[in-house]
């Protein structure tokens, strides 16, 4: 980086911490932006230094999505809040079948947060954005007093464009449609739980955090008449299927034996009394398509690295109650309900 004459003394990124001046709009904030954010997220639009990014949208329908990221701990096996904030918004845009174009990022930093950790997070964001080909082109920084934040909160907003002829929406599931998932469930939630201060169990599971737009592009190219796409993040598969069933006014029947769950995730959930169907994912998607296209879609998903463990897990049915029902591995039936509150470990 070239020396900026406005800041004769560089930030102490090894030992320094965020203080209130970094959000006050003056020279200290300009230095934080220059030496932390611009230094790593650099691109033509961000470099313009305006309060907004100015670009010409490509023809077609635009998609826009925003997502706030709060996660504890900030660093976990397989990722951190930085890459998560990039992947999460790219995926939300991609679930419309769109090609994501640009991201905006808002940071709320807590006074006293280590600059070293902030840099680590921004470097991770930059790597994720570069790998995905979706640059962060504008942003914002605020600092809150110590005790009024949780280290760092990141909000990202993304825009993308939907190819002509593609209409994907949560209200388009129809009785007879096939339900597919792109891979094993619950990896992200268990990876994060395993590093919580008060749990700290050892598990060989990394977060599945990933940008899914490449997988989605392949799926849309092969089966443009896809009906629904959604990434089962908070609330997991169960909550997402309930959302889609409600939006489309249909029921769903899934088969427990067809749902992929990594054995280590299943074991951790057993230990904590949690159900993997409700545990968060950050690199998985649910697809609903006409039954006649299911085999082709499954093949395309499995041919992509992020869909190698894809599975056909059930079908959409007519049901005025909009229940998601599951055939258990035993052959019995039960509801897979909305999550009530948050999943809480049992006493015994």
């Amino acid at each position: 980086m070239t020396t900026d004459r406005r800041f004769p003394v560089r930030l102490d990124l090894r030992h320094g911490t965020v203080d209130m001046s970094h959000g006050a709009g003056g020279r200290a904030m300009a230095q934080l932006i220059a030496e932390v954010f611009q230094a790593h997220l650099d691109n033509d639009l961000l470099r313009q230094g305006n309060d907004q990014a100015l670009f010409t949208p490509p023809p077609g329908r635009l998609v826009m999505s925003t997502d706030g990221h709060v996660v504890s701990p900030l660093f976990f096996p397989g990722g951190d809040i930085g890459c998560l904030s990039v992947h999460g918004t790219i995926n939300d845009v991609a679930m419309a079948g769109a090609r994501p174009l640009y991201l905006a990022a808002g940071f709320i930093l807590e006074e006293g947060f280590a600059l070293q950790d902030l840099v680590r997070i921004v470097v991770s964001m930059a790597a994720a954005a570069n790998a995905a080909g979706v640059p962060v082109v504008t942003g914002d920084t605020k600092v809150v007093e110590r005790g009024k934040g949780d280290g760092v909160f990141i909000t990202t907003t993304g825009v993308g464009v939907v190819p002509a002829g593609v209409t994907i929406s949560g209200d388009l599931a129809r009785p007879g449609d096939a339900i597919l998932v792109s891979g094993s469930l619950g990896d992200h939630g268990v990876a994060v739980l395993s590093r919580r201060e008060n749990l700290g169990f050892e598990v060989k599971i990394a977060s599945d955090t990933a940008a899914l737009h490449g997988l989605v592009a392949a799926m849309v190219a092969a089966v443009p008449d896809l009906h629904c796409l959604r990434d089962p993040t908070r609330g997991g598969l169960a909550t997402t299927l309930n959302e889609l069933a409600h939006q489309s006014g249909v029921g769903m029947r899934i088969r427990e034996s067809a749902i992929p769950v990594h054995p280590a995730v299943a074991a951790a959930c057993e230990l904590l009394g949690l159900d993997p169907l409700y545990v968060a994912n950050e690199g998985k998607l649910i697809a609903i398509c006409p039954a006649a296209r299911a085999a082709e879609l499954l093949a395309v998903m499995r041919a992509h690295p992020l869909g190698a463990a894809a599975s056909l897990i059930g079908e959409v049915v007519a049901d005025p109650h909009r229940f998601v029902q599951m055939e258990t591995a035993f052959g019995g039936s039960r509801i897979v309900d909305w999550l009530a509150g948050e999943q809480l470990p049992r006493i015994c």
Partner: protein
Amino acid sequence: MKYIDEFRDRDLARGLAAAIAAAADPTRQYRLMEFCGGHTHAIFRYGLADLMPANVRFIHGPGCPVCVLPMARIDHAITLATQHGVTLCTYADLMRVPAGERRSLLKAKAAGADIRMIYSTSDALRIAREDPGRQVVFFAIGFETTTPPTAVAAKVARAEGLENFSIFCNHVLTPPALRTILATAGPDGVRLDGILGPSHVSTVIGSQPYGFVPQLFGKPVVIAGFEPLDVMQSTLMLIRQLNEGRCEVENQYTRTVTAEGNRKAQALMAEVFRPRETFEWRGLGFLPDSALRLADDYADLDAERRFAVTIGEVREVKGCECPAILRGVKEPTDCKLFGTVCTPDNPMGSCMVSSEGACAAYWSYGRFRYDH
């Protein structure tokens, strides 16, 4: 998962279902109470009711420590946190249980009380060590299963001289509850043919303490594990006892339960706790010798003695049938509040809170079975 998958094998389940269907005499009814909420949870989560003949019916018992805790005890804990300014530590599924005036620990926390969700007693001890200037109270709850860890916490606090740590003891004992249910069974109570007995509780106290069930009440007991195949095998064992006219305590859960139980854990409990003369159970009323308090030697660690708290009369929500449901007298669907104003998102009664509560299990896993 070794030791888990073996007890969820589909083919074995089918074999057991066929054996139950063959053993069940079509001319009689089998009304079997699963005492523990863990059994209720397994029955619904794995859809076991679908695998039973129509004349084999599960009746849900009171065996969920969250469900049987009376509202007054939650009120007491909230008062400790709000009026005495203590840090209150408790297990997670207690957080949403309704207390008086539609309060709960979760709502008290949101209003500013220092209430922490912990995963073990060692978390509560750590919190006390880290903030010696603040009183930390562990809200101890559970059957005999979770009592030994509380005893260990008391001994550790004593050994370390942790002066800012105390225990709000709500541990309850299963045999008195079972005795009460059986004593009221019959025309005015629940009709029962046999009992699926507590499993993890029996790991601690053994199977012997349930000998009174066949002796005094003439009902067979099978100590049953929580895995779905455990529940099915135990059901078959009960049906066979009933068919053969036998009436005894059998142990299906032999991989962890012995007749005498865990002597070391029992000795710990005997050292740290004493029976309370009486204790209120939600749904069952005040039962003698049915709960534990800290022994006099540990009185300095007893939050009830350390902090003076007066609780007024606490009224149940009007129309809530939790008490009758906990006794097995009514089913969740008999309650007018069920599924209308009372759901897991907005629980009126304790049975709708815990995942092991009968109402929550019916609502979350089984409501497609009945007409809306």
